[in-house]
């Protein structure tokens, strides 16, 4: 039982009548609030907080996205410019380049994390002695603050004083100060992928492990009886039955990396030039350095819509995994 994954049961609340046994309803109302009142009292504060901190500002931002507001020039009269900000963004080649950089980062980091994470999960699933201890060690990076991670990797990756280049030089013979992981146009995009994978491959691993453990033993036993090869078992049983879990991990990582800001901001701050300038970093520059509030609100809304769409798919996948 311990090694099996139990998936949450479908919502009880959808079964009519279960939450309110008719017999005692009247009696309860005498010395307490009705269930209906309690339900609303309990849910309302959360909804109110989210409306105040998320939705109200969002609506305000939508309004601002149609204006020319620039906080560094707030003496200018506020003017409604219609869809100008949006057309500026969509016609701006730089924005498309940032989106391309972001897409490359998302695709390569998630792909690498899937390979490493799934590989590790397959190995750990063999349940060798001490696997639980080593799993915990492997999980540590993903629990750390991305900002702190980005910051200390800049020390590790310094060409002269950092250990990384010396370690590479030890295996390849390339002189350690001949390349810079964060300062070279050809390497920097791979550096952020590398550090992100160091941090998040364990995430994919943990979810895949749950997927592997959800496969009942008898399926493999049946395959053994049918003399299916290990290779065949992997392709016909292991992989297809882990795919929903893998999808969950991929979607979540893709969303998180699409909005990546903290780790990369500290590791390369978008440089050298703009080779690692992800869309969030670009947004931060427009909003908090150039103070182009109207323009950046429009860009933020475009990102919102994208993430919202992805989140929608994520929740659907989540529910699918739940029902298994």
């Amino acid at each position: 039982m311990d090694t099996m994954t139990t998936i949450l049961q479908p919502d009880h609340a959808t079964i009519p009548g279960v939450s309110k046994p008719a017999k005692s309803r009247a009696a309860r109302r005498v010395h307490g609030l009705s269930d209906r009142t309690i339900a609303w009292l309990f849910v309302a504060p959360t909804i109110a907080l989210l409306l105040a901190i998320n939705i109200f500002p969002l609506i305000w931002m939508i309004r601002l996205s149609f204006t020319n507001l620039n906080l560094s020039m707030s003496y200018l009269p506020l003017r409604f410019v219609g869809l100008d900000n949006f057309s500026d963004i969509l016609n701006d080649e730089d924005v498309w380049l940032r989106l391309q950089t972001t897409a490359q980062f998302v695709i390569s980091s998630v792909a690498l994390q899937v390979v490493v994470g799934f590989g590790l999960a397959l190995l750990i699933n063999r349940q060798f002695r001490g696997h639980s201890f080593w799993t915990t060690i492997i999980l540590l990076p993903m629990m750390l603050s991305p900002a702190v991670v980005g910051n200390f990797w800049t020390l590790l990756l310094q060409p002269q004083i950092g250990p990384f280049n010396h370690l590479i030089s030890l295996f390849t013979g390339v002189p350690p100060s001949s390349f810079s992981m964060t300062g070279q146009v050809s390497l920097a995009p791979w550096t952020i992928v590398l550090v992100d994978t160091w941090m998040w491959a364990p995430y994919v691993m943990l979810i895949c492990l749950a997927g592997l453990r959800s496969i009942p033993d008898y399926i493999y036993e049946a395959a053994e009886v049918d003399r299916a090869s290990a290779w065949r078992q992997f392709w016909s049983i292991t992989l297809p039955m882990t795919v929903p879990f893998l999808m969950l991990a991929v979607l979540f990582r893709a969303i998180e990396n699409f909005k990546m800001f903290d780790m990369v901001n500290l590791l390369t701050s978008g440089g050298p030039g703009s080779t690692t300038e992800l869309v969030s970093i670009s947004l931060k520059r427009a909003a908090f350095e150039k103070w182009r509030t109207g323009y950046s609100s429009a860009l933020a809304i475009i990102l919102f819509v994208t993430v919202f769409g992805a989140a929608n798919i994520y929740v659907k996948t989540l529910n699918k995994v739940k029902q298994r």
Partner: protein
Amino acid sequence: MTTAATKSTAHSIVEASPRAKAFASGLVILYAVITILPLLWIVATAFKSQSDAIAYPPKVIFEPTLEGYVNLFTVRTRQTPDFIAKLPPPQTWYDKLVRQRDMVIAGPSKVVPRFVNSLIIGFGSTFLAVFLGTLAAYAFSRFRIPLADDLLFFILSTRMMPPVAVAIPIYLMYRQLNLTDTRLGMILLYTAVNVSLAVWLLKGFIDEIPREYEEAALVDGYTRLQALRKVVLPQAVTGIAATAIFCLIFSWNEYAFAVLLTSGEAQTMPPFIPFIIGEGGQDWPAVAAATTLFVVPIVMFTVLLRKHLLRGITFGAVRK
């Protein structure tokens, strides 16, 4: 009969062969060692002297010193050796350490107030998020709420938003409300982010508590609120604790909001650590010391949370 059965499982694919196990454990241990090296390097750097920390080639073996930690907690000024010679003898070990570098301690650094900010904002937002989350999760778990699925999706989707994009209107709103760079502002913001995780996780935990317990209590004449307090909450303690730790970790680690919305008064550790400056750039031993102190609680929490980790990172969808 029983021996035959045991024998057959021993050879089945379910239980890997000893050789396969040895191979797997070798690779996994290798990966674990490589993955932990960067962290060990930082812990070691915290015990290096300034010159050892930036030595070329990097030093693996060095004479440990507490200079990094002393530098982290103090502000120092450089003085001439003559001036230092005229001073009364050093009172403490750290005075002595600093004077060896021709410096005197001018006062405490800002690290303690930043650490305190991290603690206050972390615990404040965690308490609020778990409190609100427990109520909402109980309601979603036990009552029929119209549009429950849509509300739950709405609650989760707020967490998916890019923080930099969220920060733009929050910055404007907080400026109007005088909440910029205040602990209260940060607590409210982190509560809003954490409450979505809290609702989803706690709903999962409360769903697992059989409702027969409450029904029995209700029949015995308890009100809903009494049943919640005396029957459900004691059963949900583990889940609430795990949720609280997840919320605490988020607030503790958060950087984007902190760097964009705070500059002094309410600044937490993550935006502060990269800017621990010595003479000529980052003071790496002090940065490493701060990183070590900052990461230790996270390592402890990870070990504590190990059993619930999977739930936490999937918003309660997958559990072991």
